[in-house]
């Protein structure tokens, strides 16, 4: 937050005329906080520094009427506050409300007064202990009160706090209750409370708007789970109730005018909403710095930005989201990217203002981080959309403006333009606002007139290209620096280069002609960087894919400008010619290679014959060493080249005399760096004869198709078998595609039934011979005998053990026998006695 306002101030200082682009809203926000300043300056809070700045900014805005209005307002508020304080006294005995819980250890008097400010800033050290117990009671009372409240009175929203002390009358009882409530119960209770409040809000936002305060205070809870829940439910509520217009600060004039009850009510509603929204955002931004809440906070911000890019405080949301575009957390980064993309795509929601802001923020971000960001942060640019005629219009306008000026704007100072534009927009808006006070009517202004739209798009474009050029320059300078330094894994040193080149390719038609030359030179340098240094490509810090992308972009730029540009692209061909050999299937992206083939060779018109021949030969050789997808891409290109350059068809034939054309370089040199010196025309495409045996049916049929050209006369073309460009051909044959295809139906094998004889097919005969040597007789005898001996030993052992056990148990039985005998004796004696008797 502080950062944001800081940067804002910086902007102000730079530009002499300070009015902000969306001034109304800011005014509104500042207005609220301005009132808070009094409390802030009295009680030390950490957000302290921001407010004076805002105030300062405001003052320098130089709207004197505003200042006066402020004073007036303050007076009014004081007047309003007085009865409230009396009310306090009436309702609560301050002594009762005095003790505990206030972390600052301040008096309750103070507390009652500043309660509102605490809430506003969202930094309230809420009444954590047993807060909910009280809240429960508060709520009842609150609802009771809300029925007899005066509509639209701002004092109303302090009521909840007035009631806090009252709740403390029961503090003794509550304390006991609180003790009994376990943490879980508390959690459950708070959850239920949140749900209740949220539902109420959603049902009737107009009358329940104050519940936002309660929800905010719940989300200040100690329990992290509760905080998360609170944040999420607030998010849900805000998503639902945020209006489709921007809430504007009321002018002094408007305030002065007596308004109806209805209007007052609406104003109060909007005021509360905006205040709570701000507090919520501040909370999110502060929580974002805590690792525990990081993802939740970012999620909330993304969702808010996604649903309400038109609403107040968009700037701070955007700033946070843009910053997190390069987060190391994958989930967070994905979320932010999605959000920014949706902003780019759904420009209707915010009239494109958010787009330009986001692009600028990202541009700043790239600048600050010296291009060391996650590629995703640049990749979002690919979702940008520009009107097709934008570039043309621009050039028309350019004629009016002095060229030098435009150049400056784009390269060094992209800022003045936006600012002046901002001013323009603001003036327009102000004039409109004066005419249309009603909010409903304001919605009309959401449709931009084409001129405005073009302006915004132009700004976006310039910020975009500024970023792209910065990345290019950066890549060049760092390549220089570490040309000979340690070998870095390819692509790692320039994380942003790949998406940047992709973007340049996509928006190539929008690039100003003036930079074209410079851009091409830059690309040339990047694409062939290594060769300037020394022969070994390993010292190059740009990966092969990146270098090929440079070639692609250069051609796209050239072509999208109707090839009007008078630049020499020969170097790019040379680069590609060499890069083909550097390609590694798993390291580099095959699609880029196929794309390069397509852009440079397949799409081009007639080629220089020597060059075409060199490429033909190299592509054929390439197809022999690489997988089927790469091979087919190469062959498609090769065929195309042969069709376009019929003279090259000589290469299909083994003309022992050698064509008249081959005399330039008599012998083909496969390792030549320069296509012109390779002598490709003197070679024969023997590769195709081997490629006919390729395991992949499409490659082999393509090879035979090409070979069939040899017998046709130059104007004829063979039956086309594959009518796709190299890129499509590559994709069709890539293993990913093959694997993602649904499994082919069960194979039906058609075998002639033939039972093989007994001959062995796989086993080595030597191994088999070993099996037949029978076991040595004596050894066998010995082994069998020992086997027998062991067996007998075991059985003997078992037998003896059984015997032993048996004997032992027999001996044991003797005791038993004795006992019984005794008994028998006794009974006998008894019997005898009985008999005697």
């Amino acid at each position, binding site marked *: 937050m502080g950062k944001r306002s800081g940067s804002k101030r910086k902007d102000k200082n730079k530009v002499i005329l300070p009015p902000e682009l969306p001034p109304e809203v800011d005014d509104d926000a500042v207005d609220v906080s301005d009132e808070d300043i009094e409390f802030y300056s009295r009680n030390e809070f950490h957000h302290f520094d921001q407010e004076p700045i805002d105030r300062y900014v405001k003052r320098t805005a130089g709207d004197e009427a505003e200042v006066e209005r402020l004073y007036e307002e303050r007076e009014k508020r004081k007047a309003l506050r007085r009865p409230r304080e009396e009310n306090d006294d009436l309702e609560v005995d301050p002594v009762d409300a005095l003790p505990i819980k206030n972390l600052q250890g301040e008096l309750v008097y103070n507390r009652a007064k500043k309660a509102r400010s605490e809430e506003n800033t969202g930094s309230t050290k809420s009444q954590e202990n047993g807060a909910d117990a009280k809240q429960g009671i508060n709520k009842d009372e609150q609802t009771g009160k809300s029925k007899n409240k005066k509509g639209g009175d701002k004092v109303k929203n302090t009521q909840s706090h007035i009631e806090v002390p009252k709740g403390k009358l029961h503090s003794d009882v509550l304390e006991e209750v609180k003790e009994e409530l376990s943490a879980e119960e508390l959690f459950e209770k708070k959850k239920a409370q949140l749900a209740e409040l949220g539902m109420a809000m959603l049902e009737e936002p107009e009358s329940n708007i104050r519940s936002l305060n309660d929800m905010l205070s719940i989300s200040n809870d100690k329990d992290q789970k509760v905080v998360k829940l609170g944040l999420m439910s607030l998010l849900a509520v805000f998503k639902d109730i945020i209006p489709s217009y921007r809430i504007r600060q009321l002018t002094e004039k408007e305030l002065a005018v007596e308004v109806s009850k209805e209007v007052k009510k609406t104003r109060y509603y909007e005021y509360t909403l905006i205040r709570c929204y701000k507090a919520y955002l501040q909370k999110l931004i502060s929580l974002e710095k805590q690792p525990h809440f990081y993802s939740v906070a970012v999620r909330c911000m993304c969702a808010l930005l996604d649903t309400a890019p038109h609403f107040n405080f968009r700037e701070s949301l955007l700033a946070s989201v843009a910053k997190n575009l390069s987060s190391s957390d994958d989930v967070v980064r994905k979320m932010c990217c999605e959000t920014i993309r949706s902003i780019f795509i759904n420009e209707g929601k915010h009239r494109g203002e958010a787009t330009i802001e986001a692009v600028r923020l990202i541009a700043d971000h790239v600048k600050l981080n010296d291009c060391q960001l996650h590629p995703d942060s640049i990749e979002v640019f690919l979702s940008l959309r520009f009107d097709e005629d934008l570039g043309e219009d621009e050039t028309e306008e350019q004629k009016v403006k002095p060229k030098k000026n435009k150049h400056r704007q784009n390269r060094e100072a992209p800022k003045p333009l936006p600012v002046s534009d901002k001013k323009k927009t603001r003036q327009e808006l102000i004039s409109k606002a004066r005419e249309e006070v009603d909010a409903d009517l304001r919605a009309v202004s959401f449709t931009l007139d084409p001129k405005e739209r073009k302006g915004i798009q132009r700004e976006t474009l310039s910020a975009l290209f500024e970023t792209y050029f910065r990345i290019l320059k950066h890549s060049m300078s760092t390549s220089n620096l570490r040309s000979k330094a340690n*070998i870095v894994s390819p692509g790692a040193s320039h994380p942003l280069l790949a998406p940047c080149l992709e973007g340049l390719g996509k928006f190539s038609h929008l690039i100003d002609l003036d930079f074209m030359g410079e851009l091409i030179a830059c690309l040339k340098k990047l694409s062939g960087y290594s060769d300037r240094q020394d022969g070994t490509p390993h010292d190059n810090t740009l990966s092969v894919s990146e270098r090929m992308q440079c070639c692609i972009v250069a051609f796209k730029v050239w072509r999208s400008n109707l090839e009007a540009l008078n630049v020499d692209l020969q170097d790019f061909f040379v680069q590609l010619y060499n890069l083909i*050999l550097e390609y590694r299937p798993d390291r580099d992206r095959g699609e880029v290679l196929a794309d390069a083939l397509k852009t440079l060779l397949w799409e081009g018109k007639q080629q220089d014959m020597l060059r075409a021949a060199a490429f033909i030969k190299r592509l054929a050789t390439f197809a*022999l060493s690489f*997988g*089927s997808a*790469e091979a087919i891409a190469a062959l498609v290109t090769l065929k195309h080249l042969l069709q376009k350059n019929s003279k090259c068809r000589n290469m*299909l034939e*083994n003309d*022992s005399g050698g064509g008249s054309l081959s005399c330039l370089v008599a012998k083909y040199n*496969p390792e030549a760096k320069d296509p012109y010196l390779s002598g490709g025309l003197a070679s024969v495409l*023997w590769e*195709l*004869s081997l490629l006919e*045996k390729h*395991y992949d049916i499409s490659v082999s049929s393509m090879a035979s198709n090409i070979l*069939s050209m*040899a017998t046709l006369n130059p104007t004829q073309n063979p039956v086309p078998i594959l009518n796709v460009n190299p890129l499509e051909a590559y994709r069709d044959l890539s*293993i990913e595609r*093959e*694997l993602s295809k649904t*499994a082919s139906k069960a*194979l039906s*094998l*058609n*075998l*002639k039934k033939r*039972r*093989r004889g*007994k001959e062995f*097919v*796989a*086993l080595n005969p030597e191994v*088999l011979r*070993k*099996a037949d040597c029978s*076991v040595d007789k004596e050894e*066998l*005898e010995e*082994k*069998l*005998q*020992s086997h*027998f001996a*062991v067996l*007998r030993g*075991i059985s003997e*052992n*078992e037998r*003896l*053990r*059984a015997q032993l*056990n048996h004997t*032992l148990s*027999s*001996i*044991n*039985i003797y005791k*038993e*026998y004795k006992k019984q*005998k005794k008994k028998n004796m006794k009974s006998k004696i008894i019997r005898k006695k009985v008999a005697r008797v």
Partner: protein
Amino acid sequence: MAKKLGKKARKFARKNLQSAAKRNRKIRNQFNNRRPRRGGSGAREDGDEDVPQRVDDATMATNDTADALIDGLEFPEDDIEIDADLSDSDGYLSEDPGCPYYSDSEDGDDVKGSIMQDGLDRQNDDMNLDVEKQKRKLKKLLDKDPEFANFLEKWQSELESYRSKEDSDEEDGMDSMDDDDDSNDANSPNTKILTTKTISEWCQLVSKDPKSPALRNLLNAFRDACRYGVHSDSPSMQRFQSTRLFYQIISFVLSESDNIFRALLEISDDANKGQIMNLRNSKKWQPVDPLLKSYLRNSLDLLSQLTDNRILSFVLTRLRASVVLFSAYPSTSSRLLKILFRLWASGDQSLSLSAFLMIREVAALLPDCLDLCLTKAYNTYLASTKLVNDRNTKHIDFLMNCLVELYSLDVQKSCERAVTSVGQLNAILRQASKTKEKEDLRKIDNWQYINCVNLWVRFLCCNYKDYNLNPLFSQVLQVIRGVAHLFPGTRYLPLRLKLVQMLNELSTCSQMFFPIPSLLFDCLEFREVSQKEQTQKTKVNFSSLLKVPKNLLKSRDFQEECVLSAIQVLSAHFAQWSYHVSFPEVATIPLILLKRLHEQTTIESLHRPVKRLIDQVNENKDFIERKREVVSFSPNDKASVDSFLQEEKSSGNASFTRFYASIVENRQPRGRKTL
């Protein structure tokens, strides 16, 4: 009261007996000096000969299903119960009383003399003394109190009846084998003590005339010998008093019975199943049937009893001759297969081989068993390829070759299985490539999967020429390419090299062109080697690795092994196309890389082999270029292209061919399997 005590005593006895048996097993294993083998040790338990093995098999089956759940690779195996004809009494053959028995006076003390003095014997002696002592004590008691004798007798009879009752209770749930044995005991087979002289006499009689009644006696003796030790208290134990006798019976019966039975049934050496089935209904069969059955069943008993690899392979070799006879008894043959697969998977080379030869014989001669054989062999193979280390790579390779042999017997039938299995592999691959999750990737990055792929590659190579296996071929190819694609990076180089080897094999057999170099570029790429000196030389053996451990990634040995392996597979690729007209182009890009590697590498030991390959390739390249300069045909002339340099190829004298042969030879001692 007495009953209770009896129970206790029984419990005690059982406990002691078990521990004793355990100890004995241990001793025996030490004595035999070999690893305990699954199922091999449990077969000696008193009274439940078959139970442990059964349990073992059951656990194996559950393991199998568990694995199938994990991998989905195994074939479902319906456990065919082998009880079916175990219940027919076939154990004891009634003997002809006319056969002579000789007294054994001459080899009476042979028993004591020939038995080796091991721990067990000493223990037995001690126990003997103990028993004597206790008996004397009891005697004293009895003398003291004559009435006690009566009491004891009563108690003993009570105990006896109780035990028999319990036993019968228990045995209801036990293997039918026991009932069988009990009934045999009840039949009270011959318990006459055998002597070497008797046996020799019988042997002579039988050799002279297979129809001699002595055969019955001999087979009975064989039966008792095979079951020796199964029931320690059975009277048949007493029939063997000498080790020599034991050997005599077993070796004679095993070596001669095949001839004898063939003579009895009048069948030739190359009889097939149909003939046997026909014979079954003939008159000739009736008298021989019990004899044959007894012989086969008892041989199986012997197989499951024996623990020594050499004897086992001897028995297997002997038994192999009579495989066709098994066809008359399907359940016996399935039991045979169970034993065979256990032995086949065991680590011993010659035993494995003889077991396999037997399996193959069974599969070839008994068509009914083929399905079971294929399924069991495949599952056994998968189970034993779970873990691969330096020691068992050869064995696994052997198993794989065996399996290919087996599957090549009836390609039509095995192709269905191959299609199913490859379909499973493919499904796993697709799943993994879709989700890219660790869990799914791990299903591929394991030996079972890779070995399975390798199996089908080998199968294709063996049968590609004779059968049209194209659909299977392309499926396998897709699996190989997919796996190579899913596991990029240096860590998986060993896996990749394996895949390349497979591709080379496929390429050789199908004469198709595979762009192998693209998969090898990683190996030829120069990488930095950690400078710090390694304290000990870590041996990196790619043949037992799929994934290189992280700590070795930068080691010198890894780099070395990488390049050397790459050179090997690359030269195999070059060798295949070394006579092709476009060899120079095939070599162009790899040559550039090799040259670069040669310049950059800091590992001295690599300079020479790399340079050698470069030189050889260059030489061959020049050779082809020279040759093709003088030909007049064009690339589109297929016939001429195919016939180009065919003469040279068949003579195989080109320098590159020789170079490749030398490379293969050089790599062999390093324990690497070559193509």
